[in-house]
């Protein structure tokens, strides 16, 4: 190859490389106006050139920061690359965050230029303008509804593009010169961690870090420019950005943006991605959909489905891993593939998935086994924003339900006495922006990053994550209490949407449980149970009995594992409302904010441990359109049978 791979150390250089080598190949597709609009690598490079020159005219210089707020759209990724061409640092923000949450990042990074997708994002930026004096230019992509906006800061993306095209004509070599100035160590992007605790921190990642990790994982999976990825998660989350920005630049494959959230399922089935990433909650939601729809099927189809699912549960995973399986079993599975698993993968849009990752939080073992058993090569991945994602990845053939796989090439792992995991890798972040104390705290002198996760290496060298260090607790009698592990087992049942376990420094474990409105509602309708809304459904006796059965089944599984037998759930209550990010109970990526919940529902936790039968709760709730209302309900507390730990079990 003309330029050796080493010299391509920044994303803009990679862009020019792809435009030269595979110019006609599709770089990015977007379902818009009913069909898939396609940008080839040359077209994408031209778009980036126009926007970069435009931004340069508008005064965006090396080292400046530029905010990007919006859904997965080709123009958002073009703007991101354009900023990098000028040596500026793109800062993607969550598009469903409220205005207040955007103020801190913009002040912190002194952002002058921002690209917003549509009127909704522009309104948020205009709302926080008073607190962000630095913000001078806001470019909007979709002009809908913005015709009468006369604010001076506003300019349309198309106008920016026109300025860029004229500028590029005047000085054709300008962009190449700017790109040459860039080097691997320059910051490529800044991601604000959602942070389950204090204010968010700006993680600065260099070109080198992102590209190196992207290449390491690509080589491991043999990704080529023929692969296809669907980009549907928020671009501001490193989990999505690595797959829809860093890796396509590293390998040249094509990313596809769905038309809208409602059409995601059909768009995914149309595109048929070969390389797929989904956090556990998305996989859970899919499984719940599958079980609800199968429940409504005719008796014949249901029995067929259950029969072949048992076959899959027994042999599916083994066949996928290439382990030896009897011929009769293999034939039986093949029949199942024709009748159930093939069509199921087809309807879920996953027929062409070669590699599927899940990460972001620990996944329930049964949920994980379900996808592998129907032939989807789902593998676990561990990483975080600070480590450019790829730390541990399960290679094909060594996939286990409860580990996250061995370290990826170039990553070193070390453990502190409290079992905290330390990591050293080329993908480490440079610093928390303008937060030296946090940087020291996280990265010590000789480059080890403190992940804050507790875990250990198992016999095959696979990393096994227990929980967040500060969450891993001990019951009074010292037995290990890993709340996330319990919560994931509970969440495997379609009827349970979210769960929060308590037990640290207590004598037994209790839990809050959120029922899944759709699944339980469907279950109730089948039994002719009338209910008015979420609160009424959650308070019904029959629903409590249903959830008690689920909890008792979890307790039975826990009893089988000597280490966890002590942390069986004794008492639980069904929350009167769904935990929601808008009320601060979850992070933007739907992770439980344990500390906040314990503090806010203090009275409920005490009632659980005081052995009370029921507790009254008054809570303020924020509705979708911003109005707040009062919910009051009497939550009755239920007891769940726990099982004696199994006698001497052979080592797990």
């Amino acid at each position: 190859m003309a330029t050796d791979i080493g010299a391509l150390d920044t994303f803009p250089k990679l862009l020019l490389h792809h435009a030269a080598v595979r110019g006609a190949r599709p770089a990015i597709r977007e379902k818009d106006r009913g069909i898939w609009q396609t940008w080839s690598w040359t077209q994408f490079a031209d778009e980036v050139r126009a926007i970069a020159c435009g931004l340069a005219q508008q005064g965006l210089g090396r080292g400046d920061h530029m905010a990007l707020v919006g859904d997965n759209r080709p123009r958002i990724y073009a703007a991101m690359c354009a900023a990098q061409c000028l040596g500026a640092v793109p800062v993607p923000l969550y598009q469903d965050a409220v205005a207040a949450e955007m103020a801190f990042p913009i002040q912190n990074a002194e952002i002058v230029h921002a690209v917003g997708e549509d009127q909704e994002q522009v309104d948020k930026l205009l709302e926080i303008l008073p607190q962000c004096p630095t913000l001078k230019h806001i470019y909007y992509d979709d002009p809908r509804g913005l015709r009468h906006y006369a604010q001076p800061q506003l300019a349309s993306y198309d106008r920016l593009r026109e300025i860029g095209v004229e500028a590029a004509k005047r000085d054709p070599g300008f962009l190449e010169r700017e790109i040459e100035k860039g080097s691997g160590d320059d910051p490529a992007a800044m991601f604000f961690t959602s942070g389950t605790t204090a204010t968010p921190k700006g993680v600065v990642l260099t070109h080198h870090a992102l590209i190196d990790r992207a290449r390491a994982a690509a080589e491991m999976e043999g990704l080529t420019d023929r692969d296809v990825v669907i980009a549907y998660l928020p671009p501001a989350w490193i989990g999505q950005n690595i797959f829809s920005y860093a890796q396509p630049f590293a390998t040249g494959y094509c990313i596809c943006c769905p038309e809208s959230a409602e059409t995601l399922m059909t768009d995914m089935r149309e595109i048929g991605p070969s390389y797929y990433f989904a956090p556990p909650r998305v996989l859970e939601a899919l499984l719940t959909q599958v079980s609800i729809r199968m429940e409504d099927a005719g008796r014949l189809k249901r029995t067929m489905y259950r029969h072949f699912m048992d076959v899959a549960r027994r042999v599916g995973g083994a066949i996928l891993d290439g382990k030896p399986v009897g011929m009769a079993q293999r034939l039986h599975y093949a029949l199942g593939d024709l009748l159930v698993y093939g069509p199921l993968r087809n309807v879920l849009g996953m027929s062409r998935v070669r590699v599927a990752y899940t990460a972001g939080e620990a996944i329930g073992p049964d949920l994980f086994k379900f996808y592998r058993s129907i032939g989807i090569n789902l593998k676990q991945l561990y990483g975080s924003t600070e480590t450019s994602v790829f730390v541990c990845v399960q290679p094909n053939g060594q996939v286990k339900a409860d580990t996250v796989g061995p370290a990826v090439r170039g990553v070193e792992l070390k453990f502190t006495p409290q079992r905290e995991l330390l990591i050293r890798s080329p993908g480490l972040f440079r610093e928390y922006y303008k937060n030296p104390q946090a940087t020291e705290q996280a990265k010590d002198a000789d480059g080890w990053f403190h992940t804050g996760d507790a875990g250990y290496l198992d016999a095959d060298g696979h990393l096994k994550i227990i929980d967040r260090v500060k969450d891993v607790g001990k019951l009074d009698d010292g037995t290990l209490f890993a709340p996330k592990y319990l919560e994931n087992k509970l969440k495997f049942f379609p009827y349970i949407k979210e769960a929060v376990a308590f037990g640290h420094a207590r004598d037994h474990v209790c839990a809050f449980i959120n029922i899944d409105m759709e699944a339980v509602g469907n279950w109730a309708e089948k039994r002719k149970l009338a209910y008015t809304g979420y609160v009424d459904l959650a308070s019904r006796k029959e629903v409590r009995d249903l959830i008690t059965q689920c909890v008792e089944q979890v307790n039975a599984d826990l009893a089988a594992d000597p280490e966890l037998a002590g942390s069986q759930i004794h008492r639980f209550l069904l929350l009167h409302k769904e935990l929601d990010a808008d009320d601060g109970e979850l992070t933007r990526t739907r992770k439980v904010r344990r500390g906040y919940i314990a503090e806010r529902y203090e009275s409920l936790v005490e009632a659980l441990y005081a052995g009370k039968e029921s507790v009254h709760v008054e809570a303020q709730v924020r509705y979708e359109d911003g109005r707040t209302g009062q919910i009051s309900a009497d939550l009755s507390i239920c007891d769940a049978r726990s099982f004696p730990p199994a006698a001497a079990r052979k080592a797990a």
Partner: protein
Amino acid sequence: MFYREVGQYKTSYAADQALLPILQDRIGIAVILLIAFVAVPLTASNFALDSVLIPILVLSLAATGLNLLTGYTGLLSLGTGGFMGVGAFACYKLTTIFPNVNIIFLILCSGFFAAAIGTVFGLPSLRIKGFYLAVATLAAQFFLSWCFIRIPWLYNYNISASIEVPTKTLFGLAVTGPTASSTTRYLLVLSIVTVLVLMAANLMRGRIGRTWMAVRDMDLAAELIGIRLYQTKLLAFAVSSFYCGVAGAMMAFLWLGNAESESFNINQSFLILFMVIIGGLGSLLGSFLGAALIWGLPIVLRHAPAYLGLHIRSATVDQSTFVILGVLIIFFLIVEPHGLARLWQIGKQKLRVWPFPY
């Protein structure tokens, strides 16, 4: 179950609006055409061709014509038989006046005559609707039947008031008349039917098809949107009669070899109406399924006793066919008022979302 729609995405409107956007459907149609054009001529016996396949194809074309009018535009017509007759006699007169002109061209031209007559009898459709319109087409049927007997010029003053089809050749091969082999006639009928049904499918996915369906569903709203009701209805009558005319011409020339007023009487109209209703109003596939069932069933019933070794007087078999046919029509209307095509559509939809129910 057999559908694998993953990866079939459309990057252009032309692809999105294709007749068969899904790959598996394209494969299905290709297989059917292959069987029809290659396998059948090689294997089918003359009996199968002459008394089963050719009739079904010809009647399917007539049913398609009626479906365009009744299924897609909502105008009930009982004059199909008459319009087919016009096609047959027009073709006969054309061959006598222009003996050496290509027969296929004449068959298609006779369709235009039927279209003209159809439009004339469609004129009342502006002022009257529903059953009342059925009377107008019934008047056409009886009037045309009367003409086929009372106007000797139509059958060249032949005393038996019927027409004998002369032998016509195409590229040296006998195509009509007694010497023409069943296979050639079958292939000719098949190609004409395929082309015309393809044209009908194209019409239905374009502007004209939509205006017809709009007139069927809510003609008042259609008018307020700027659709000229009168022109749309007349166009429907014209195109529908064209199809019936061509079907009639093929019936005389490529199937029976002769024709007289009896073969285009009111019973023929009812027969085709049954095919469209049982097959499925508003579905081209329905016309084929209906024709195959309503024509095929009596043949099967007639041969069933012999096949099963029971020997029943042929008269009783014929009469019981009537009863079974009547019971079948009622049964279908109860089970699926929208006909076989809807059953086929439901089945296909179930396969697409297999293993889910919806």
